[in-house]
């Protein structure tokens, strides 16, 4: 095994760590500058190579860590130096960060390669050649920022990556920025993701401020070193930090209440969903909590909160996933749910379990998304075939008339035969996700459940329920997509994707199947690997590393979870195979699109509409905000402040004053008033016509008045 304990000394490549950032940068720059003249394949190759090389660097770092598990920090340059705020561009090489690098670069490379094929097809279908370059530039940018995130040796640099990946997410969700609902839907989804993430970042920022106020540094090591003193002095401060940070985690890792962006993020191309919104970026929150474990370790209430948030999210998202029809949406909610598992794990302190699940999840969820992408393109190809090869023009028109959604599972079915490789890899991924032994998901999920069963019953129950749902909706999905009869023309004409896509799928399938080997309960390789980094007081460390009281494997826990998963699969088979077939006998008009719709009734609608959380947010937050800002802008600032106050009160007031005063010089006003009075009291109607002023005498009168007043002053003084 690669990560064997044996070697105590070995080659040291720590100095290479900046290259995990620079390599994607180079790839990106090449494509930006010369990309216009390069061919599609070359662009993709450059980008993939850059990522692949970054992976090589990560491997070298891992190799070095075998011999020098204490790791190293490589400081590249100073960044912000202001007063006692000293932040540098520093890279941390330790087992935790290297794990992340490996996952990011490894999965990333595979997805890059896959994307060469996928995006080629995309280009064919959407017809904009420059997109290809843009896609890979953004993809490399993502790897770059993600690497910054995971390799930072301080919170601020981590934040750079943190927001950077958010940016890439924004860009890639809105990649087809002129598509989506009303042509703007995708762009809106991107904006939603960014802004929601910003809310999380707001929490992160506050955490950073508090941290600086208490520790005067952002450096991981320096912060952790001071924890004991600070915890004694001001535990509330650390609680504030951790809770603020939780807000950031909720944003990035799509936890309640900020998870809403992730399902919409599926608007991006599928490789994006796989890489960013499943495997890597969304796990940044998990990484952050794992990284900040020493902080969380001293405030148990924060830990509880995190764990509960994670567990609740896991169950909540799981329920929604049951009632979705979009193939990617199901996976998206599944991702949210699985992220809940991880967050709950690291929240409880089970860092290894959480990280372990992070890694395996990266494998199988990436696999699932990519396969889904393959399915979608298969369907699209099928649709394309139907459109172009159909002899009857009429049918094409009829077909084009209604919107065809290649991602809707209700349009699929029976693909098992038409897309064999995709089917098999998908199946592996699904089993892994469902947590059925001996695939990777089982081991990692089981470890989390095991820890939960010891540490927090509530979390355990929630997660178990979520695990059950996981198996169920995955079963549902596989059955709806691959089994049964084709439910649309396109599905019937779907075809398998090319090797550039299927080969990465197969590799990922292998990892998904075997990933469990990383941290079998009996060897705990991964745990030992991480223990060099997660260094804290003994008692806590045991929990973190999953070594508590020799609990290595609990057959009861494993049995329950496996059993539930199997039941769920069977249930899914019953509902979506048996009952579905019976349903088909109904006339099409009365036929429900989902067998469960009838059974669950309003509950299904509730789930299908995601508990109307989006609508709730619109009602409670967004619409009031928009209304308020409109009110401020149009009424307060413009009408009142600008037009009324400035233009009317000040400007017009002055003009009026000027006019009144100059009229009074004429004394015409007094004249008019006097005449008016005269007219009112006497028969002065004629007099009104005779308004005429004797200027000279009025002027003299003014002088006279002045004299009288001055004399009066002198007398009365």
């Amino acid at each position, binding site marked *: 095994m690669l990560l064997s304990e044996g070697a105590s000394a070995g080659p040291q490549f720590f100095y290479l760590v900046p290259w995990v950032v620079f390599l994607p940068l180079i790839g990106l720059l090449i494509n930006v500058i010369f990309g216009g003249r390069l061919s599609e394949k070359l662009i993709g190759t450059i980008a993939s190579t850059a990522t692949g090389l970054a992976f090589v660097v990560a491997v070298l770092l891992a190799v070095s860590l075998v011999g020098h598990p204490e790791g190293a920090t490589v400081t590249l340059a100073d960044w912000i130096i202001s*007063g006692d705020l000293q932040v540098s561009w520093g890279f941390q090489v330790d087992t935790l960060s290297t794990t992340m690098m490996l996952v990011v670069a490894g999965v990333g490379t595979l997805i890059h390669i896959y994307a060469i094929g996928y995006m080629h097809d995309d280009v064919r279908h959407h017809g904009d050649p*420059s997109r290809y370059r843009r896609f890979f530039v953004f993809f490399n940018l993502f790897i770059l920022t993600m690497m910054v995130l995971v390799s930072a040796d301080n919170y601020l640099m981590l934040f*750079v990556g943190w927001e*950077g990946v958010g940016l890439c997410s924004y860009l890639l969700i809105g990649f087809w920025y002129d598509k989506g609902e009303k042509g703007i839907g995708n762009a809106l989804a991107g904006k939603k993701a960014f802004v929601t993430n910003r809310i999380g970042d707001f929490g992160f920022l506050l955490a950073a401020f508090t941290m600086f106020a208490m520790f005067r540094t952002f450096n991981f090591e320096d912060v952790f070193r001071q924890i004991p003193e600070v915890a004694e002095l001001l535990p509330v401060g650390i609680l504030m930090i951790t809770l603020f940070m939780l807000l950031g985690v909720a944003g990035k890792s799509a936890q309640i209440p900020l998870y809403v962006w992730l399902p919409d993020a599926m608007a991006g191309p599928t490789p994006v969903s796989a890489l960013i919104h499943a495997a890597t970026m969304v796990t940044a929150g998990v990484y952050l909590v794992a990284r900040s474990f020493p902080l969380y370790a001293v405030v148990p209430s924060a830990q509880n909160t995190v764990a509960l948030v994670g567990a609740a999210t896991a169950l909540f998202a799981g329920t929604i996933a049951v009632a979705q029809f979009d193939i990617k949406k199901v996976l998206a909610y599944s991702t949210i749910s699985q992220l809940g598992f991880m967050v709950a794990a690291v929240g409880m302190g089970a860092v290894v379990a959480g990280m372990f699940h992070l890694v395996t999840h990266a494998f199988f969820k990436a696999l699932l998304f990519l396969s889904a992408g393959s399915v979608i393109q298969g369907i699209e190809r099928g649709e394309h075939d139907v459109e172009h090869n159909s002899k009857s023009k009429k049918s094409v028109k009829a077909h084009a008339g209604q919107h065809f959604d290649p991602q809707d599972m209700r349009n699929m079915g029976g693909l098992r035969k038409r897309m064999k490789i995709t089917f098999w890899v998908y199946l592996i991924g699904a089993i892994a996700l469902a947590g059925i032994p001996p695939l990777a998901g089982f081991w990692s999920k089981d470890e989390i459940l095991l820890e939960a069963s010891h540490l927090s019953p509530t979390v355990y129950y929630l997660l178990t329920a979520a695990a059950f749902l996981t198996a169920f909706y995955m079963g549902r999905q596989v059955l709806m997509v691959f089994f049964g009869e084709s439910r649309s023309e396109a599905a019937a004409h779907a075809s398998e994707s090319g090797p550039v896509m299927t080969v990465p799928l197969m590799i990922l399938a292998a990892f998904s199947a075997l990933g469990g080997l990383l941290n079998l309960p009996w060897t705990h390789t991964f745990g030992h690997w991480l223990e060099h980094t997660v260094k804290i007081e003994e008692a806590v460390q045991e929990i973190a590393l999953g070594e508590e009281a020799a609990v290595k494997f609990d057959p009861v826990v494993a049995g329950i979870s496996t059993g539930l998963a199997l039941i769920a699969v069977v249930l899914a088979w019953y509902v979506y195979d048996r009952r579905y077939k019976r349903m088909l006998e109904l006339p099409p008009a009365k036929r429900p699109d989902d067998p469960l719709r009838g059974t669950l009734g309003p509950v299904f609608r509730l789930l299908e509409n995601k508990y109307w959380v989006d609508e709730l947010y619109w009602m409670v937050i967004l619409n009031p905000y928009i209304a308020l800002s409109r009110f*401020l802008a149009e009424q307060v600032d413009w009408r009142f402040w600008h037009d009324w106050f400035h233009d009317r009160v000040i400007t017009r007031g002055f003009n009026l004053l000027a006019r009144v005063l100059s009229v009074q010089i004429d004394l015409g006003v007094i004249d008019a008033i006097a005449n008016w009075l005269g007219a009112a009291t006497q028969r002065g109607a004629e007099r009104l016509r005779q308004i005429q002023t004797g200027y000279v005498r009025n002027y003299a009168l003014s002088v006279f008045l002045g004299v009288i007043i001055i004399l009066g002053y002198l007398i009365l003084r």
Partner: protein
Amino acid sequence: MNFLLYPLTLVTFFPLLGVLVLLFLKPEQKTAARWVALITSLITFAISIGVLVQFNPANPDLQLVIDLPWIQMAGWDISFYMGVDGLSILLLLLTTFLTPISILSTWTAVDDRVKEFMIFFLLLELGMVGVFLAQDLFLFYIFWEFTLVPMYFLIGIWGGGRRMYAAVKFFLYTMAGSILMLLAILWLGIYGGTFSVPDLIAKGGIPGDIQLWLFIAFAAAFAIKVPMWPLHSWLPDAHVEAPTAGSVILAGVLLKMGTYGFVRFNIPLFPQAALQAAPWIAALAVIGILYGAMVSYPQQDVKKLVAYSSVSHLGFVMLGLFALNPQGIQGGILQMVNHGLSTGALFLIVGMIYERRHTRDMDKFGGLWKVMPIYGTLTLIVALSSMGLPGLNGFVGEFTILLGAWDAGQAGGALGSYWFAALAALGVILAAVYMLYMFQKLFLGPVDKEENRSLKDINWREIGTLIPLLVLIFWIGLYPKPFFTLMAPTVDKLVAALQTAALAMH
């Protein structure tokens, strides 16, 4: 004249040379006028680089000082006193840097009365540089008011539909503030027998209540210029109506004169008043941040959106300055530069599209990224910089400011409450809302307006105006250390003086 050979006088008055040359050009020689102005401003920039080279960052005091007696009377003296220190060096460079860029941006946009335009522009540069270098209150006031005149013309002659209204409003608003400052300056001159700022600071000892009054009088001038909420009503008008280059300079430099005034005069001259006023100013700043961001969002006119965003951004600057600690002040100064770069660039960008389509209504656009990919990408970077994305300049400034403000929120800090920083940090979210909204309205979505289909992407000249800004945007974002180094000693000295004042108060 030896007088003109001092580096600081040279950099201040060099544009006059260009003005002289321009005066001899015929109105028809438009291209020549453009070149003369561009070259003059470039040389001025080069001179300011020379100033930077001679500047010793480790020295907290005024450097390259020139102090010549000017008007000497019994009981008061006015001197031609210029100097540069950590507070002003960056702003000096920003000014000389943005001027050639602005001039370049007018190459095709301004075709009417080019000669006059360039004359006013160079005069404006003279005034702005003078403001940042003057160390004598009289001299400062002259430059301060002088900048009004060319800007007034730039808006009024080359502006948009309601340009006259906007120009007069700009003039009157700014003047309204500065006349109060004039009184305060006169009072100080009588009190100290001199108008030299360092001498007045050294003399100190202004009684507390009077300090507060003087502080308010100075603050009135600067707050209008900044503009701080609720004195910002002139800004949208001025920005919307001003020609592109005018907006760039207005946002990039003129507004900074206000914030600079605070840090150069209000804080060191009236430290006790500054300490007392800090929470109030910070409260206004925070309101400005949130208000500006919220009001930006529903705007239809891109320029107005950017204008209101300035209110928000300068709120950050003010918050930082009145955190009265090193991070806050340094962040504030850096953010002045950042705002100059980002908002300047945004105005350039708006100008480019306006030149093509003659509208700034966001509803008239959509999907431009497809038509103008380079333009779209550059806009995106600038927008991100403006909303404070880490790795770009805006973040460095905003983060240090907020950090400073949070620090000042601790017991014993200048602000005394964490709420300032916390609420201000909300502005970071709101910035994303309006900036992304703008980007979406302009660039994303389908190209559904026929007029937009045939738009040409930006040309090399236009790229050339943006590239220097982008370089700095990245530079400050990734390696701001040199910028902090330039100002750190001066700021530290200022903070130390404040601490002394705070001790004296208790």
